[in-house]
């Protein structure tokens, strides 16, 4: 067990090291300097002063060491497009919003996906099974921003238009932009969680069907245990194992999926900053956020995998 944990932690650090290094050299592969953008009239002297100020006249390996050193101290550099605020400061204000959205989407996606999968497996080839399959297919085949657009129009604009016409108030049940009260969170969390619902429902169904045919389920039935107890204590608990394995990966999916949702719903989270930094060609911001995201995802995956080894005794024995 200890060897496994140590191995995983070393791997996590190796991953972050690869990401940091790759990001650094990609950043330096861009032709020109960060200052050569709009003002071509800049004199060679000014450029030299700027280069010196930002340490860009030093040899590459020294710059690399400074960069790694700064990231280890939580300093991701200065954003070029957000009034020269530091990237770290932006992360600190925007990350809680993204985390909020991500957690809501994950909770909705996991619960709905697992329940749908269980019901589909228990009523194989019945209507609920087909509904589950169709949901999974929609979740896979419609991109989130398309689903978002449709829901924004129908539930957001359509509904508030109807409310206005009928009750003469400006009350919006499902506002389509910003992040304020619970009402604001419903559509974005639903759209972001849809992918999780789709893949988990499929996985849980297969896993349940696998468990239902096991010998120990027959034993449990023969012992006269009630149906409800067999389902929840024997079948679901065992079928959950493969689902928990992918949960770590799901976090990555939800986090990366939120870039699109946040920019679509004008939610002031990290994803929106990432998308804006791409369009504004704010390289330090894009790179800084990428490194931050990778560190976050690597460690959350590590945490989920370690939890998994606590839940499943077989993992402990294996390594």
């Amino acid at each position, binding site marked *: 067990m200890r060897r496994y944990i140590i191995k995983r932690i070393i*791997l*996590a650090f*190796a*991953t972050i090291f*690869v*990401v940091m290094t*790759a*990001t650094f050299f*990609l*950043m330096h*592969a*861009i032709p020109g300097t960060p200052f050569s953008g709009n003002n071509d009239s800049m004199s060679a002297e000014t450029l030299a002063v700027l280069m010196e100020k930002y340490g860009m006249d030093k040899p590459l390996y020294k710059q690399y060491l400074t960069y790694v050193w700064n990231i280890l101290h939580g300093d991701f550099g200065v954003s070029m497009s957000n009034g020269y605020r530091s990237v770290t400061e932006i992360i600190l204000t925007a990350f809680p919003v993204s985390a909020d959205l991500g957690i809501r989407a994950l909770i909705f996606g996991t619960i709905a996906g697992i329940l749908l999968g269980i019901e589909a497996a228990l009523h194989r080839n019945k209507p609920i099974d087909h509904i589950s399959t169709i949901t999974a*297919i929609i979740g*896979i*085949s*419609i*991109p*989130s*921003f*398309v689903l978002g*657009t449709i829901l924004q*129009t129908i539930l957001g*604009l359509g509904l508030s238009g109807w409310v206005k016409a009928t009750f003469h108030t400006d009350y919006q049940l499902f506002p389509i932009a910003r992040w304020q009260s619970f009402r604001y969170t419903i559509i974005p969390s639903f759209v972001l969680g849809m992918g999780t619902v789709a893949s988990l429902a499929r996985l849980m169904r297969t896993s349940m069907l696998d468990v239902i045919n096991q010998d120990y389920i027959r034993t449990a039935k023969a012992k006269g245990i009630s149906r409800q107890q067999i389902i929840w204590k024997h079948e679901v608990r065992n079928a959950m194992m493969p689902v928990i394995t992918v949960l770590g990966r799901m976090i*990555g999916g939800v*986090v*990366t999926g939120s*870039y*699109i949702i946040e*920019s679509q719903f004008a939610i002031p989270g990290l994803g929106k900053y*990432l*998308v804006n930094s*791409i*369009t504004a*060609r704010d*390289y330090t911001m*894009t*790179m800084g956020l*990428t490194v931050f*995201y*990778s560190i976050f*995802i*690597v460690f959350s*995956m590590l945490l989920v995998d370690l939890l998994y080894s606590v839940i499943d005794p077989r993992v402990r024995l294996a390594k």
Partner: protein
Amino acid sequence: MEMVKDFTPVPRDLEASQKIYRKSISYSQGVVRTLLQNKVAMVSLVFILFLIVVAIAGPIAFPDYEKTDLLHTLTPPSKEHILGTDELGRDVFTRLIRGTRTSLMIGFIAETINLVVGMLYGGIAGFLGGKADNIMMRIIDILMSIPQMLVMILMLTVLKKGIPTLILSLTITGWIGLARLVRGQILSLRENEYALAAKVLGAGKKEILLTHLLPNAIGPIIVNYTMSIPGAIGAEAGLSYLGLGISVPEASWGNMLQAGSSQFPASLWLFFAPAVLFALAMLAFNLLGDGLRDALDPKMRR
């Protein structure tokens, strides 16, 4: 004794009772037959073939996907423009055909590169085993922890936008899933007797890998390939929405969806034409993949 008369004993002709009436079929014949009987998979296959034909021949028949007409912008579907025009007066139908070519090309090329790289990497790791396998798998572990979307965003921010860069960014970490799958297959297959027999008969390592092990692992590989193409097409759509994918005037399903959702709901045709085609294509690839999985796995046949 009256009863006995009602029944006549069956003649005990051993030859006749053991005769095989149905022709025995090989594995590949069985696969084809199961697939042909699966209506959903066949409809999907026909639809995909149709899309491929459109992608190849369509842009030749309708080449003017870039032609703007500022006098007729955002016109709803009519006789001249079956699917209407976009905000610069370009014909949506023509662009949709061009977009089909772009999107399918990205999906097929990217995933074929992933297929080749993944098969070679996984095959070599699984076949060498031991230390080499261990090192190769640690490299995969590291690459796998990096979210693919972030890699793509990084690559596309730094490099010149366009189809080649998009394909490159889809393949940088895209082959990993297949490499792991192939390695697992090879590890279990090389323990089989026929691998040993080939070795005893003097076949080289390379020959055993290429002529015995990889062909036997082909089933799951095909399924994975089919299912990963919609993934690549979907990734293009997402990246185009972020402004990183294919930029206009070139057409792709992704940037058409993006253009459509920016004019939604005022110009519905601009949104629904690509959305419906995109969803149908994703559906067809996924359902064909499901059908192939069932057909290739003898246990799933009924």
